[in-house]
């Protein structure tokens, strides 16, 4: 149920994102989703990719600090209130979101929400109980 996500430490200097995406492109790694969280001094790039181990390896070789974490992907219909419904359900259960980002799949019918929670197991239970669709990394990559 959990989706592997890679995270890369980024100093705030120009060209770093371009460098990372080029490294991944050269290695034939496809990026399915990404987000950048930033502070005044540094940023964290979070990526969902088709080849996790390959991506980690090539980025490490280039000297980047790479980490692997697990996130949860929820598929919702891409229409008004889709995200709000998910968040309300989590709020009811008192589950705190560490971070999240989203993307819309190719057909444009569904949106995929990527979540990191403090309490991952509890979150999965709650989402399932709420009738939401949790998808795997393979499903994301196949979208």
């Amino acid at each position, binding site marked *: 149920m959990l989706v592997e*996500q890679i*995270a890369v*430490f*980024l*100093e705030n200097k120009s060209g*770093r994102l371009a460098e990372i995406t080029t490294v991944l492109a050269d290695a034939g790694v496809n990026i399915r989703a990404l987000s950048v*969280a930033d*502070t005044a*001094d*540094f940023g*964290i790039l*979070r990526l969902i990719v088709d080849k996790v181990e390959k991506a980690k390896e090539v980025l490490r070789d280039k*000297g*980047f*600090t*790479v*980490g692997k*974490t697990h996130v949860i992907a929820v598929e919702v219909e891409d229409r008004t209130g889709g995200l709000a419904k998910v968040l309300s359900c989590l709020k009811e259960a008192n589950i705190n979101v*560490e*971070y999240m980002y989203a993307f819309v799949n190719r057909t444009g019918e569904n949106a995929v929400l990527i979540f*990191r929670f403090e309490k991952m197991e509890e979150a999965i239970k709650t989402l399932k109980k709420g009738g939401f669709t949790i998808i795997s990394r393979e499903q994301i990559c196949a979208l």
Partner: protein
Amino acid sequence: MSLTYWEEEIETLPRVGLESIQLRRLQHLVARVYRTVKPYRVKMEEAGVKPEDIKTLSDLSRLPFTVKNDLRDNYPFGLFTVPLDEVVRVHASSGTTGKPTVVGYTQKDIETWSNVMARALCCAGATKGDMVHNAYGYGLFTGGLGAHYGIERLGATVIPVSGGNSKRQINIMRDFGSTVLLSTPSYALNLADAMDSMHVDPKSLSLRVGIFGAEPWSENMREEVERKLNLKATDIYGLSEVMGPGVAQECLHSDRGMHIFEDHFLPEIIDPDTGEVLPPGEKGELVFTTLTKEAFPIIRYRTKDISRLYYETCACGRTLVRMEKVTGRTDDMLIIRGVNVFPSQVEHVLMGVEGVEPHYQIVVEREGNLDTMEVQVEVSEGLFSDEIRVLEKLSRHIQKEIKDLLGVTCKVKLVEPKSIQRSEGKAQRVIDNRKI
């Protein structure tokens, strides 16, 4: 301007007389230290020199040097020459690693110190009638209390305001009518900024003279301080290992540095590489031997400060040798807002944080009038998290540890691995961008 001395006879004594006092005191000191302090005796024996070998002042060069590490090795009181019940005060400054450097004073030492500090104040034109605003930090640092006792000895009124809270300082200056200011030069500029933001015109205040020290400052900075605070800015020198403030002071007539109170503190200039004593006027490392201190005398202490000595009689009439404004250091010690910082101390802190790699760099800047220190730490996979708050917590933790150990606030910047330049030999730990 009238010439005033605190102790005219000694301050204007012809050199031959001064040297005879120095020699007598040196012989007495060496004999006492040899007798009472084992580490000194061991070092002298290793160097093959005995107290009776000191027959002239030039024999001083036969004695071994003392370095900051000797103080650390004998931490805290191992180099004291009197029993602790005769010690009435201790002070401490930061050492090169975790342990501070501790110094002690007997009642007579405090009197000597008060006296030389009164000489320094007098040398800068302060008198009994002055209202002296002492903004040096009070505490383990020698600055605050050292100056304080000298001001009282002079008979002037001391305002023991210590450092910080600039707005309150300006109000006190205005309301109490401060005439003499003692602080670090960078803090003086900070006060000038505070005056500006409070719309206080320095010309409306009574400040006449400033006595600034504890950190390096340039002639440009002097002009700026004088212009912005509307006072005459003078330079003072001192270090806790030798006494504290009041080792040397610039007079109002000199264009060549500070008078060393050499009947108490005997200076030499050496080549920092060979240890050879250099002739008068040559630039090198300043070395001090205390001639009258009881609790913590020191022989040939290497200050690591770079200066030179001028023996010509000054226009003020003092025969006391002058030392040039300190122009640099022979080691990597940084002075950040008056606090001594060794890169090794920062390293010590970093190595205590789990997951931190020994790759770091210290970047020092002067923003406005204040020194800033940024510590750059490479983020290894052991430290990395995909959550911002975890990384921010890490940098705050390092910042707090540095503040706790070194007493200086720094900014911690997390950087990518390998982004700190690796050098072939000695790593370049410090980038000092200050234009001093």
